[in-house]
């Protein structure tokens, strides 16, 4: 890496400074430094929009790279991930917000007033995960799925295989081979013994 880039790169002390500021103001926790140019933090749902606004306006994280959700079905929650980027310091900061995945709690405040492009992400999350974003424009219009009445398909309990077996039918006489078993049995039985 050239010297020019190491100089302009954010230092770990600066990341900790931003984190300390967020921790005092909003109780942000769980700093994970992945690389010199990437970190993740966790925050509560009620503080999330304030944290994002603070990061955008005071710490220069002006670019929303993406907004998505990870389904942690075992723990009964979704993790919303707001990936922010600071072009000055060349630093990625992921803000993770946990929300319950069932019932009325499965909703989040909209951020389309901060980033107009966020409305598209929120529309997709509503369609694919069933997360509500009250006030987000055109939230209930179809995005990628047209006329879909089943479970939101990106939720873990939506079983793609069960859905396709229910909706479509196989060609008569179709046979299936389990790749793993086939490899074990025929291609390298000697290696299979060591597993």
């Amino acid at each position, binding site marked *: 890496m050239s010297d020019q880039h190491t100089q302009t790169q954010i230092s770990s002390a600066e990341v900790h400074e931003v984190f300390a500021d967020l921790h005092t103001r909003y109780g942000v926790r769980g700093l994970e430094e*992945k690389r010199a140019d990437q970190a993740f933090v966790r925050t509560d749902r009620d503080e999330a929009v304030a944290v994002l606004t603070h990061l955008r306006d005071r710490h220069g994280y002006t670019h929303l790279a993406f907004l998505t959700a990870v389904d942690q079905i075992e723990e009964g929650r979704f993790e919303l991930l707001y990936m922010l980027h600071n072009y000055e310091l060349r630093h990625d900061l992921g803000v993770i917000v946990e929300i319950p995945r069932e019932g009325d709690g499965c909703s989040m405040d909209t951020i389309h007033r901060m980033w*107009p492009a966020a409305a598209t992400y929120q529309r997709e999350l509503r369609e694919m995960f069933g997360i509500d974003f009250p006030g987000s424009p055109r939230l209930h219009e179809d995005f990628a799925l047209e006329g879909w009445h089943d479970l939101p398909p990106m939720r873990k309990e939506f079983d793609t295989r069960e859905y396709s077996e229910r909706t479509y039918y196989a060609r008569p006489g179709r046979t299936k081979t389990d790749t793993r078993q086939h490899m074990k049995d025929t291609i390298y039985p000697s290696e299979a013994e060591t597993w």
Partner: protein
Amino acid sequence: MVNTDTRSDRPARRGTPIPGTSSARGVPNLATRSQEHINDNPLMPPIVDGKAVFDLDSGKYLKLWQGPQHPGITGNMSLELVVCGDEIVECKTHVGYLHRGFEKLMERRSYIQCFPIVCRIAVPEPDFNEYLFAATVEEIQGIEVPERAQWIRTLNLEMARLASFFMWMGGMAGAFGLGTQGQWTVTMRDYILDRFEELTGGRIYHMYMIPGGVRGDFPEGFTDRLRETIDTCEKTLQDVERTLFNNAVFKKRAKGLGVIHPDIVDQFGIVGPNARAAGFARDVRKDHPYLVYDQLDFEVVTHTDSDAYARAWVRLQEMYQSMDLIRQILDRMPAEGPFFTKLPNVLHWNVKPGHIYKKAECTRGEYGYYLNSDGSDKPRRIYVRGPSYTHAVSLMEHLSIGCNIADTAGLMVSLHTYPPEVER
């Protein structure tokens, strides 16, 4: 000759803000110049907060669908336009015609089964998907990639960039009715695909950058043939430059079309050549050097006009830059060395738990993969961040207001959007 183009009367950029259009506190004015043009015209509906207020039943407006099958659409998506006269007052992007649920499919498959899926996410340049998928897995697992493999990967990505830009250049010319340049550039793309076929065995989907390295080394005499191909491409690109960028039709129609105001760049998450044409020197290759980009010499290309012509110009310069980078890579890469690290048995491969985001500069800007692993043999979540997600949906909807119907295709192509990465 009488100048009938009203656009050229107006200043080159940064129109004055319109009162009453800035929405929230501290948010800069979002109006584009074409929206100001609508606001000046009493026959057109008023624009409030970037959206036209009109009554569709009044008989003054017409709903018009452009796509999903239309020569002026990039790939399979459609625009639902409301026009007043021949100017667009509202645009809604509809995607989903290519939705194959890649992200969901990957959650049910082992990592090695995901590998042939990812390249389908962006058809004209699948290599960025392959690289980012491999890079996220390698980073979580702590796999070191041999040096020669890193150079080969960089070469592969630059070839993909060049091929994709060639295809785009033809589309850009075609959108304004200039068919000839499209014939030339698609031929050049085909020559690059020949090299890809030699190197990887596939023309479109290469499936080459497997986690751990690349699948194979250069075939005999490959570098010489690649140099020849690049020379041919450069010659043709010079012809394209002369005939397209000096063409009266192209200049007249592309200049002043779809101006992206620098203030909206961060609000709409605009990246890549679209942002660079607005004056932002942002390039992931420079800002977060990955692979061997820190050992290559290149400068970030920028322009300030931020219209379709400026974006085309930036991409043209990046094509020359890409050719230069390919030559640099061939000169500087180590001649010998391993190109692959042995992986554990990929059918029984549990990737360490953790999550990571990796990004690379594709032809449209920041392309990223977020991988969340729970320690099993399948990913818990893979999210693909494609630049077209904002460019084709919210930005297109914003920019097209006040645009002429005939220019919609040109505007859309100038944003360089690939629908598969919108719906994934």
